Structure formats: structure tokens, C-alpha cells
């Protein structure tokens, strides 16, 4: 997973780097290890990729240096590998371009090699492929050629040395992508609509799966490059996306509120005194669980430090640090009480186990019941979401009751798969539920 953004000024007076910077801050939850911004200034492409979070990686001097009325950016969960400027990718020619990408560009490297192009990482190969295609003629025809080669689920945004910006959403639509606009001033493409909000742009629409946008200094065109075969990622709604985003026409916040109601109706609510959320994703689940059951909601934990996506940190040690910093319990919210603890997911079970233990053993909670706002995660993701391998997934190995014993909960329940599909409100056939079922929309492949 990554977060990407593209901005196209309708007037060359605009400097888009700072818009990209704040847009990326709004997408920071989609990748926290590296980030980068490229701009086009009318003559050349300036490209700056760095390690770390956006506000650590870019200072005033860098932003001032990146002058240009077209800008793209990426936040990425992978540290910069090899060359210091791995992301955004850059292709020197025949048509110079820089490219950002969310998802797995599987197939790009093979296609690039077949055409005798240098192919490093898949994203770099994608940049080379597009650059080559652009030299041959119509830019949207070039996107068509590239889309043919892509085998995964991949969205990308490229800017070229000809002043074009090209955005494409893969035909499965697994990864989200929206288009926005600010007055008569600039157009924007972003992974999530929250990035548009933060820079003041209006959300206009989701890109259709398989749809491309082409911005040039004197036109904007869109084309359905491939027939849409929507398989929207369900995990985005549960965990990945920000609740202030609207994705595939559905408000993530509303989906999460429905998940909370569903949790309340699916499994007994027990005789609890209060409902507590593990921050931060699970807060809407807990709020609506409380609304639906009449059990009062409390505030159980305070986070220390910046918001970190603990489950997707690269190492077990970092995950543990992330969780422990995130979850300093408030004693009086739980001491002597029967508590309903609501969390967003259980991957390995260690986090939940630690949390329940602290609540019971150190804070003095009398009972700890656990509800999880996602169905059982049983299978990894072939589309670039950092779900661990199957042998690390507790739900792939143990029953619900057994997991309850491992984490030492009084009662323990996952959300049902049907519950999730209903809460999202999109047809089941339009969703990718691979991490919950092991069935992926890739030519029926099982992984």
C-alpha cells in the first residue's frame, strides 16, 4: 500500500509542491517509511525522495526548491531501497517522466525486459514502460499499452517533461483513487478524498476502475482504458482508509459506524459497564456499538507520540513499541469494571493479548470482552497490503473460541464476513475479500 497524489495547476503561477506535501500528510497513514515529491516547472522535472514521514523528510528549503505547477507525491510503507531516490520513480527518456504508484505493479518488470528496457523495481519498470509508450503517440494509447502489461492491482500518477499529468486506476479498482478540483485553479488526483479536503479541493468523483485521466496545458481528457471489473478492497473500509474519506461513493466513517452496530447485533453484548476502543481506527466501531447497546462509552487509552500504524510496522519489535506507546491505559476507565474492548483487527494476536493482560492484571478490569471490527484475517494480500504470511495469522489456525483463550478475553468475537459486506453497502461481487477468504480476483488464483 502507498498513498499517492497528483496536482495540476491550470495557471503556471501555481507552485504545487506544498499542496503535495500537505496532501501527503493526509495520506501518511498509507505509508510511513519513505516519501517523495516530483514537480514539473515548464522545463524540467525535479524529483525528491526521502526516508521517513513527510513532515520529517521535507523542510521549508526543500519545498521552496521544488517549484512547478504540476506536482506528484507518494508516501510508502517501504524504506527507500538501493538508490536514495527510489520513489517517486524517474524515467529519463525517451519521454522523461516521474511516476508514483499505489499497489503492486506486477508484470511491469517482465514487460519492460521483453521490450529491452532497464527494469529495476516494478514501479521503476512501470515508469520505463510508460515513458517508452509515450514516445510512440497518443498518451492515453500509451496508458492502454501499460495497462495491458499490469497483472496486479495498481494505480499510478505520472508527470512528464511535456507538461502532462497522467493518472490511471487499475481495472479491478482494488486501490482507491479520486479526482478533485479547486475553483478554476487546479485539478487533483489522490488515493483518498481526505487529501483533497486538507488542501481545500472539492471531491468530484472516484475514478472508474480502468479509467485514466490526462491533463495537458490545454486539455483534460478521460478514457475508460479497460473494462471495469470492480473488486474494491474491503480492508480499506475496516482499517486502512481514514474515516474522513469517501471511497467508491461510500463514507468510510458511515461504514465504520455500521460495523459497530453490526458487532452489537451479531454477538451477545454481555453485562458490561462500559465500551472502550483501542485507538484510533476502532473509535467509530465503539461509538456506534455504544449507541446501539446503550452501554456508555469511555476513553480507555491515550496515545504517546505521533500516530503510528502499529500493525504495518516492518518488524515485530517496532510493532510492539508502536502498540505500547499507543496504548497507555486510563486506569479509572476500567478499574473494577466489566469492559467491552473494541479493536479493528487481530493479525497475530500478540497486541490484543498484551492489551487485555494490561487491562486485567495491572489496571484491575473485572471482565474484558473483546469484539473485533473486522472478519478473521486468514490470508495475505497479493496487492501490496502488508498482511503477514499465512503462518503468522492466528485466525488461519485457531477457532474463535481458541483465540479468545489465547488473548484471555471473557468473550471474543470477530465481525462476520456478511456483516462487513452489509456494512460497506456495495455488492459483494464488487469487493475483494481476499484477506478474509483467501480468494482473490486474479483469474481465480488462490494464494
Amino acid at each position: 500500500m502507498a498513498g499517492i497524489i497528483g496536482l495540476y495547476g491550470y495557471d503556471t503561477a501555481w507552485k504545487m509542491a506544498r499542496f503535495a506535501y500537505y496532501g501527503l500528510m493526509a495520506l501518511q497513514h498509507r505509508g510511513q517509511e519513505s516519501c517523495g515529491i516530483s514537480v514539473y516547472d515548464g522545463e524540467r522535472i525535479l524529483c525528491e525522495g526521502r526516508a521517513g514521514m513527510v513532515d520529517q523528510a521535507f523542510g521549508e528549503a526543500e519545498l521552496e526548491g521544488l517549484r512547478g505547477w504540476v506536482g506528484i507525491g507518494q508516501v510508502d510503507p517501504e524504506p527507500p531501497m538501493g538508490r536514495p531516490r527510489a520513489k517517486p520513480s524517474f524515467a529519463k527518456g525517451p519521454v522523461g517522466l516521474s511516476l508514483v504508484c499505489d499497489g503492486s505493479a506486477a508484470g511491469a518488470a517482465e514487460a519492460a525486459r521483453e521490450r529491452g528496457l532497464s527494469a529495476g523495481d516494478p514501479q521503476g519498470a512501470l515508469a520505463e514502460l510508460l515513458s517508452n509508450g509515450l514516445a510512440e503517440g497518443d498518451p492515453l494509447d500509451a496508458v492502454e499499452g501499460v495497462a495491458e502489461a499490469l497483472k496486479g492491482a495498481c494505480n499510478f500518477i505520472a508527470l512528464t517533461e511535456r507538461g502532462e499529468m497522467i493518472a490511471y486506476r487499475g481495472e479491478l479498482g482494488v486501490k482507491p483513487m479520486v479526482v478533485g478540483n479547486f475553483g478554476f485553479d487546479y485539478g487533483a488526483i489522490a488515493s483518498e478524498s481526505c487529501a483533497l479536503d486538507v488542501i481545500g479541493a472539492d471531491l468530484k468523483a472516484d475514478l472508474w476502475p480502468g479509467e485514466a485521466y490526462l491533463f495537458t496545458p490545454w486539455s483534460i481528457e478521460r478514457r475508460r482504458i479497460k473494462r471495469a471489473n470492480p473488486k474494491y478492497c474491503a480492508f480499506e473500509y475496516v482499517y486502512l482508509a481514514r474515516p474522513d474519506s469517501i471511497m467508491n461513493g461510500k463514507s468510510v466513517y458511515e461504514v465504520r459506524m455500521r460495523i459497530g452496530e453490526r458487532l452489537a447485533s451479531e454477538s451477545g453484548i454481555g453485562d458490561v459497564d462500559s465500551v472502550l476502543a483501542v485507538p484510533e481506527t476502532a473509535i467509530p466501531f465503539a461509538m456506534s456499538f455504544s449507541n446501539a447497546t446503550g452501554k456508555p462509552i469511555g476513553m480507555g487509552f491515550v496515545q504517546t507520540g505521533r500516530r503510528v500504524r502499529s500493525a504495518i510496522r516492518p518488524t515485530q519489535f517496532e510493532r510492539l513499541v508502536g502498540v505500547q506507546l499507543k496504548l497507555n491505559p486510563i486506569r479509572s476507565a476500567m478499574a473494577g469494571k466489566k469492559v467491552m474492548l473494541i479493536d479493528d483487527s487481530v493479525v497475530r494476536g500478540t497486541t490484543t493479548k498484551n492489551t487485555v493482560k494490561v487491562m486485567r492484571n495491572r489496571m484491575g478490569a473485572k471482565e474484558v470482552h473483546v469484539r473485533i471490527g473486522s472478519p478473521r484475517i486468514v490470508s495475505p494480500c497479493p496487492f501490496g497490503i502488508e498482511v503477514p504470511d499465512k503462518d503468522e495469522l492466528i485466525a488461519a489456525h485457531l477457532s474463535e473460541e481458541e483465540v479468545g483463550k489465547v488473548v484471555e478475553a471473557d468473550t471474543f468475537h470477530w465481525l462476520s464476513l456478511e456483516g462487513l459486506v452489509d456494512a460497506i453497502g456495495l455488492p459483494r461481487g464488487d469487493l475483494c475479500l481476499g484477506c478474509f477468504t483467501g480468494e482473490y480476483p486474479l483469474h481465480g488464483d488462490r494464494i
Partner: protein
Amino acid sequence: MKVLLVGEGSREHAIASAICRSPQGPKLYGAMRLRNPGIRELCLRSGGDLILGDSMDPGFISKAADRFSVDFVFIGPEEPLFRGAANAIEGMGIPCIGARREAAEIEMSKAFMRRLMWKHKIPGRLRFQAFRDLEDALAYIEEYAESVAIKPARQAGGKGVKVIADFQAYLSKEKGHVKTEHARAIETKYMKGYTDIEDRILIEERVEGPEYTIQMFTDGDSVAPFPLVQDNKNAYDMDIGPETGGMGSISGRGMLLPFITQEEYEASVDIVRRCVKALEAELGVKYKGVISGQMMLTPLWGPTIIEFYSRFGDPEGVNVLPLLKTDIVEVMEAIASGKLHKVKMEFEEAATVVKCFAPRGYPERRDLAAGHPVRIDAGSIRAMGCDVFYGSVDLTPDRGMITGGSRICEVFAKGDDLSEISDRVERCSPLISCSDGWGVFHRSDIGSAPLLGRRIEQSNLIRDVYRYRMGKGLVGTEVDWIPGKGKIVHSAW
């Protein structure tokens, strides 16, 4: 009866059509810069004629009126009015539909218009600063400007307006840069060559809300309004892209739009009427012709004036002129004799959609957009229940057409249901193309249910806000508190 029509766009084509519908059987004469095929045909068919020349030049227009010894002149666009065409024609003793130079100032000078509204305390006015000097404007931007509209102080062919929402402090630096650059561009580009006005740059408070246009005839005493119209300015679908002169417009059945109330409509008419009277009080001349309010529903006032037109809007005029059942020649005579109040304006009860078709390159690169051979299958468009009004195209000697760089034509249709009408117009789009393969674009969403839904949603929101503010006695008023200075009331009263 001989009528001379000045102008060569789609709007003038629609005016020409209305004149030729008159049961009095007037002969139509055209004075234009390009050979607009639609106007040309109507002139010839009615037994009139046309003459080519600088249609902005009062001298040329007077000569044309003289040559054809016409009984009436109807001036379509604004620029000839700014240059005194109506004064010249009236000087010849010929009645003219079109404001005199002094009265047309309400469109030509945006600072004059605002001063007039403030002096006469007419509702729907915005706070503004006019600058005669670029450096003063830049200093003002540096010190005060937050969310503002920065405009050329003179009407400059509808170009050069930039409205900047500046709410995020963290993006203010970039926005400030663009404001400054734009103020410079107004001086060096948009206002270049205009020597008929002292103010150069206008900075206005920015307001937000749904826009609509109210167009009317006036004889200086009473007004005769047309149904409301809404234009769509962004170049591409879903309100994406740079600003254009308008990519298409809608009107509802009856006088209202689906998102404007009767009360708002009446308030809008009243604002324009009061401005017409204020003009007479200031200048001592009666405004005879067309006046249009480019309006917005704002939290500050409800109906608010953004700009005035001393003419029909384009494309907005194309929506409503075909609906006019009253004989337009009769209306023209009533305007000339000051008896407009005796004429009852009747309209066909129908909703309308107009979509503009433009060559690729418009609006940013008209040089690229111009000079392409274009085909418009008018026969098939009419057979599909639509009509076409020619815009920026020129007839070539072999009866072909080439693009002029602006909007090629406007396709009009009427009916009961906006989205059905929109679909009908949509089906005409393959009938307009450049034969050299150059792209032609239009907005498919004008009149569509999703776009209309957005407008209704926005209007409901703004209406709630201005009614709340009305209830709190805050109409036209903004109250701030500044540390060290205390409470500051910006009141329009």
C-alpha cells in the same frame, strides 16, 4: 421594418432567430466581424443583407445602419456599447436596443458598479477596493487580502478574474504568490490596451454559492425579466478545469431554476431594477436595452451581484430567447417609446439545456483551437429535436467553415425534463466535428441529474446559512473581534 443586428456569436444568432420569428416580418441586417452562417442565412432569408467589418466600432455600425437605412438597431455584445455605439445610433435618430455608453459603465467598470450599489444601498453588494496603481494593489494583497476575487477593473472580454479561497494558513504563502502574480498579469496582460478607464485592478471579498443569471429588457423605468438561467464555467465535466466563457446552461420550466425560490427570484429582479433606477439618478440617462445580473446565492445576502452584463449572457441568452412568445419587435418598440410596462412577456413553459462545443485548446490556447475546418450537421441536429446556434466559426469561400478559436456552436433543446433534454443534446455531439481530426469537446453533464443534485444540495446549504444570518440580523453584515481593537462591525447599512 428593417432591423440591424450587431455581433456574430451564438447569442446574436439566437437574437436573430427571435427577430425573424416576429409576425411583422422584419428584414434582418447583420453587421459582423465573421460570417456567422446562422445569422447570414436568417438575413438573406428575411430579405435583408449583411456587412462585414469591425463590429465593435461605432463608426462601422453607424455606417451599416445608414447604408441599409434600418428602423432599429439591436446591439448584441458589450464592447460596442462601451465604445458608444448606442449613443451614435441614437444620434442618428434611430432607436437602439443597447445601453448608452454612460449606462453601460455598469458592466464596463466593476468599480463603478460597486460604488453605485454602495451609494444607493442596494442589497447584494460586496466589499471591494479599486486600485489605479499595481503597487498599491500588491501592498494591499500583502497586508489584507485573504479569500478574495481579483479582477481587472474593466470588463475584459470576461477574462482575467481569479477567485482564491484562502482558508488554510499552511497554504497561504502559495496563494499569496498566485494573487500577486495575477495582479501583475491583470496590469500587463488583461488590462493592456484599455485606456478608457482609470481604475486598473479590483479586489473584492470572495463569496461562495450557486450562481445564476437573471436577464431582462428595460426601458429605464420598468423591467421585463426572462426565466432564470444557470451557466457552467469550468471547462470539463463535474466542474473540473479552468474557467471558460461558459460551457453550457440550463433553465427550468417557468421563471425559476430548480434550486432558486420565488422569493430569491423576486429579490434578484428587485436588485437589478434598483440598479437601473440608480443609474438614471446618477447619470440622468435611461437605460434602454438588455441588462443581466450575474448572481450568486451567498451566506452574506442571499441573492448577491457578482457582475452585471449590459447584454444577454452567452450561452444564457440562447436558453431563453427561443422561449419568448411575445413578439420581440413589439418589445423593442416598447423599449424605444418607454412603454415597456404595457408589454406582457410570455414564454413557452419549457425547461431548456444548452451545451457549448469548443475546439481542443479552448480556452487556454485559442491559437491552437483556431483555423480547423469544422462540420456541423444542422439538419440532423434539428431532426433530433434540437437546434444549433453558430458561434466562433467563419464561412470560407467554398461554403465550408473554420474554427475561430472560441466556442464553435451551442446546441439547444427544450422539453419537460432536464436530464432527458440533456441526453437529447448529447446525442447530437457526433454531428459536430473537425474534419482534420482536431478534437471538439463539450460537457456531457450539463442538465444531468447528478450535476443538478449538486446545485440543489449547495443551494439548500447556502439558503440555510443566509436565513440563519437573517434571523440574527446579520444580513450584509460581518462581526469580528480583534485583540487590542475590540469588536468590529462591517455593516453594509
